[in-house]
């Protein structure tokens, strides 16, 4: 059936929009018999489930863990990953009933899935193994039982950070007997979040040492380029990588689809949402079980209603279309998951919530609306399609962002390098300092004690000078009334976010958050704040309390505040001159200061300026790290500097959107500044800075990979069919000045030409 649909597709007029079509051949399973040390009860349980032998990676994981090795298992979706950790853990607990394990999942939903699975296995093993979830929803009277009795405690890093470690004395029973720590979805722990989590794991190991335990770490990750390195940095120990996947997969067609251009000069393409709908409809109408991935919640709801509407005309299929995302109630989600497994749901539209290890069985077709942001995610989503032997299909529909356009027109990027590197910097000064406070609260530091293998004496004596720690008789003691974990959030880029409160009709519900740095731009008084496609007018911004009060409106304009960003170089960490690298480039520490003075009201579609207002908010400063490169441009003196500025802004826009390809981060993690004549380099210069104070390593990575980054930007610019700049390359140009795109190209060309091959 699916073969016929694909054949029709190949013959239709849509085929010309396909930029890539490849068949991934069938891969047979590689098995190994059950290990001899596997408890016969568990072997019986597996046989009951129809499992007669293990995949090679499961067997390898079992052996390594059984010999107390820390491991990272890297396997695609639906390859039996959970058995890689459940088997050795259950096997050990059956033999040593007092021993305990801690499971960490990035979200509550994933934790709940795991608990359901473990509980049912525990029951079949004669109730010998007790599994509990411990998170913010756990009732207070249940907590006592979990602390003292749970063999397996399932939680998330946030709860470990603020609820468990600071109260470790109440968890003595767990820590004294902790044999295993399972860290699933390791690839999610990257960037700022990952840097925080690495420190939480340092604290965990410190507390374990206090109670005399030394647990084995079992990590599992989606495909990333550096699983071993990432695992080692995250848990601070050497890890063995298990990446020879023994699970079978059926043949799969992978298709990249680029919506056609409908306006050549503005470079506007057909909506990827509508194209996604069209393709998904084709599959579902032919009774092919399909999952549609989309990034934004609002797109998800729109797609569900569009699909349901079109299938209403075709009879009863409308009820077989469901949405699935984080905000749904757990019960509802369980129901959808079950209906998917049982084939009752034919089409599901999901955010990346279903990309992770939720058990929904395998589907035959996947349609992805827009590049999900990282190659790892893309492969996870593609991996949702594919049954053991049947043909499956995965279609990526690109949208008009530069990143999407690059991916869709350069499929070799996805297939060639496989995945990007997950980056973290557990030693970021701000993050490390935060967690040293938490750690000192949990247990006094000894003089000379290392934290994550790092000498932290200087930090500790700083905290002594601040009056937060007291150093006496060779130890650093917590000397404050504060409970430090409450002030440190692992998730938000910066600990002090602003919240937006919807006050429509006397309500007061939080609808969103904005980081401090972006607040003056997005939620100043008079701003139109967009949320899930709805417009809100910001009535009041309470800077002190970090709250913006807004109400629903319907207006025909949006607001655009000019953020005047100034960047000063404080120190250069590494620098290279032309000849060894393209252009003169460096990375180092910078001071970014930003101030907004006024905002403009801009009418939709016509983009005319229909008014403005002043913004009087304090200037903001941030110390962070940046990568920058400078390139001399030989231009006629008659070229106005605004044109050059536009061109540089265009290059900056392009880089901001393509750099995340190498960094496994979001475009929002970075900021750019383009200077026609930089006071530091005296040349036209583009800075890419990290939006988290102190940076988490992106700037250095950009420096190391600069040629690649510039080349990609250049290729994308060259390949873009628009005339003078569009959202897919240098950004929309309000004044259609033909030269911006031309000078942008020249700037990049020069930058690349003046360098030789990068150093080996």
């Amino acid at each position, binding site marked *: 059936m699916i073969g016929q649909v694909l054949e029709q597709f190949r013959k239709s007029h849509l085929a010309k929009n396909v930029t890539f079509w490849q068949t991934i051949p069938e891969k047979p399973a590689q098995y190994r018999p059950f290990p001899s040390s596997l408890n016969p009860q568990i072997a019986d349980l597996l046989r009951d489930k129809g499992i007669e032998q293990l995949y090679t990676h499961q067997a390898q994981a079992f052996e390594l863990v059984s010999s107390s090795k820390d491991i990272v298992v890297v396997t695609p979706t639906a390859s039996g990953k959970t058995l890689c950790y459940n088997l050795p853990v259950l096997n050990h607990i059956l033999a040593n009933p007092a021993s305990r394990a801690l499971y960490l999942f990035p979200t509550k939903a994933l934790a709940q899935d795991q608990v359901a699975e473990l509980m049912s296995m525990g029951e079949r093993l004669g109730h010998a193994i007790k599994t509990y979830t411990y998170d913010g929803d756990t009732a207070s009277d249940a907590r006592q039982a979990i602390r003292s009795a749970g063999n397996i405690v399932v939680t998330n890093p946030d709860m470990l950070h603020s609820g468990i470690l600071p109260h470790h004395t109440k968890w003595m029973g767990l820590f004294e007997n902790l044999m295993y720590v399972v860290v699933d979805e390791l690839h999610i722990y990257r960037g700022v979040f990952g840097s925080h989590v690495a420190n939480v794991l340092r604290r965990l190991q410190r507390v374990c040492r206090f109670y005399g335990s030394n647990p084995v770490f079992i990590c599992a990750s989606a495909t990333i380029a550096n699983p071993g390195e990432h695992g080692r940095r995250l848990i601070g120990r050497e890890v063995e990588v298990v990446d020879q996947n023994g699970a079978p997969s059926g043949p799969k067609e992978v298709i990249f689809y680029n919506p056609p251009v409908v306006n050549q000069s503005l470079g506007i393409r057909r909506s990827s949402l509508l194209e996604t709908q069209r393709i998904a409809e084709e599959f579902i109408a032919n009774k092919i079980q399909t999952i549609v991935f989309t990034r934004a919640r609002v797109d998800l709801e729109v797609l569900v209603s569009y699909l349901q509407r079109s299938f209403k005309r075709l009879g009863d299929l409308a009820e077989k279309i469901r949405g699935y995302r984080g905000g749904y109630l757990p019960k509802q989600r369980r129901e959808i998951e079950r209906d998917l497994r049982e084939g009752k749901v034919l089409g599901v539209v999901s955010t990346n919530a279903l990309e992770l290890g939720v058990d929904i069985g395998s589907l035959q077709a996947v349609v992805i609306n827009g590049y999900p942001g990282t190659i790892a995610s893309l492969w996870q989503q593609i991996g949702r399609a594919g049954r053991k032997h049947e043909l499956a299909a995965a279609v990526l529909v690109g949208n008009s962002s530069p990143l999407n356009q690059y991916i869709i027109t350069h499929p070799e990027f996805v297939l060639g390098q496989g995945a990007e590197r997950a980056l973290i910097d557990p030693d970021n000064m701000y993050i490390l300092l935060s967690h040293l406070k938490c750690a000192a609260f949990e247990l006094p530091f000894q003089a000379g004690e290392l934290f994550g293998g790092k000498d932290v004496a200087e930090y500790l004596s700083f905290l002594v000078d601040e009056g937060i720690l007291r150093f006496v008789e060779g130890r650093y003691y917590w000397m404050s009334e*504060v409970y430090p974990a409450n002030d440190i959030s692992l998730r938000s880029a910066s600990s002090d976010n602003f919240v937006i409160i919807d006050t429509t009709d006397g309500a007061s519900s939080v609808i969103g958050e904005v980081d401090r740095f972006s607040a003056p731009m997005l939620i100043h008084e008079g701003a139109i704040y967009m949320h899930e496609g709805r417009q809100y007018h910001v009535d009041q911004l309470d800077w002190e309390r970090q709250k913006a009060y807004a109400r629903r409106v319907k207006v025909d304009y949006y607001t655009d505040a000019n953020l005047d960003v100034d960047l000063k170089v404080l*120190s250069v960490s590494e620098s290279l001159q032309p000849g060894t690298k393209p252009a003169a480039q460096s990375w180092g520490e910078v001071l970014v200061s930003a101030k907004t003075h006024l905002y403009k009201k801009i009418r939709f579609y016509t983009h005319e300026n229909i008014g403005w207002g002043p913004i009087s908010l304090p200037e903001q400063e941030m110390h962070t790290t940046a990568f920058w490169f400078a390139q001399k441009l030989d231009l006629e003196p008659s070229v106005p500097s605004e044109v050059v500025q536009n061109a540089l802004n265009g290059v900056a826009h392009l880089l901001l959107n393509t750099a995340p390809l190498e960094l496994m981060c979001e475009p929002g993690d970075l900021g750019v500044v383009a200077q026609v004549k930089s006071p530091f380099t005296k040349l036209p210069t583009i800075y890419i800075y990290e939006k988290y104070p102190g940076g988490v390593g992106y700037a250095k990575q950009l420096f190391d990979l600069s040629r690649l980054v510039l080349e990609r930007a250049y290729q994308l610019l060259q390949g873009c069919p628009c005339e003078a700049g569009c959202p897919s390359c240098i950004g929309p140009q309000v004044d259609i000045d033909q030269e911006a795109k031309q000078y942008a190209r020249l700037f990049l060309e020069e930058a690349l030409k003046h360098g030789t091959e990068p150093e080996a």
Partner: protein
Amino acid sequence: MELNQKLRRFAAGPKLDKGLEAAELGFANGREVSNPFGRYYMVEHTYPLDSYHGRLRLDSILTVDWSRLAFIAKDESVKTLDLRKALFLDTETTGIAGGAGTCAFLIGVAFVRDDDVVVRQYLMRDYHEEAAMLFDLYRMIQEFDAIVSFNGKCFDWPLLRDRFTLARFEPLRKNYVHLDLLHAARRLWRASLPSCSLDSLEAHVLKVAREQDIPGSLIPQRYFDFLRTKRAELLIDILEHNRSDVLSLVTLVGTLDLMAGKPAAEIKSDSLCWAIARLYVQDRQWHRAIEFLQQAASLNQSKAVRSAACSQLALIYRRLNLWDQAQAIWLMLAQENGDIQACEELAKFYEHICKDLGKARQFAKQGLALAMAKDRLRAAAFEHRLERLERKLARQEKTTLSVH
């Protein structure tokens, strides 16, 4: 740039004095104690049992009827409490946030020895003395069977157990009887006092005078100041505060016992009387409850207490089938206060007990009129009741007619 420079730029603050290394406390009745874990400081005062703390003498503790305390504390195990095995305990801590970073730097305990109450205070003069201080406390606690505290069930006791864990002592095995006076005091004085904190009880009930007392919320910072400066005088009023608190635990027990032992007629506050009555109601001692409810109502100090006491009285009479008394109270409440509940009870009473449908209808109507404005749900119930009454009345009329 040097790390230290960077850190400093991140949060510049004034440097603080490190202070002196050793503290020469020299407090009266104080001495340094050493044990295998190190050294710490102990202060011990003895108070003859016949001395006063506030308006009560300490020896009031000797005659306490512990089953009365058990009754107020709603804790059966308190009945078995043996005064000579009871430790009165109060801690001063470095904060109230809880967690492994909060510690008790001063632990005050009191116990009865011969003809005295002994108040012993364990003080760590700096963080490194904690283990030694805890060790002696840990050994002493094992000689006792019961703990008397104020909010200790939630705070002091779990905190101490956490500290013992951190010091790597074996967990305490004994099941201590724990009389937490906060809960008992709340039951009695919630309505009549602005707050049931120990401070407030001392001021209003125990009449303990405190001169130049340090407020509890300032104690952690004061201790940190002491650590930095090692100026002994910074601790003086903390120690006094703690001693006074521990002695207050002793006289608070005496006061609670006195209160619970008084006949109703001697209680001169209606809300206190009402609170005691509630205890008897919960304990299903109906006749004692009636006694206190009648007293609360007849004191006639606040309208709210009076009508609550009357309603409760009527409910007890109903339960005991004393319908005349119940009816009288309901009629009074319905007339004087426009009490909806009373109307409902009367409607029920006339319909089911007296079989007087006309009167039942009258009170159902009155209740409906009262409930309309205030309580939609109740109003609906009255409507329902009225409909049924009208039907019954119509049927009755028919029967009456046909008989004629």
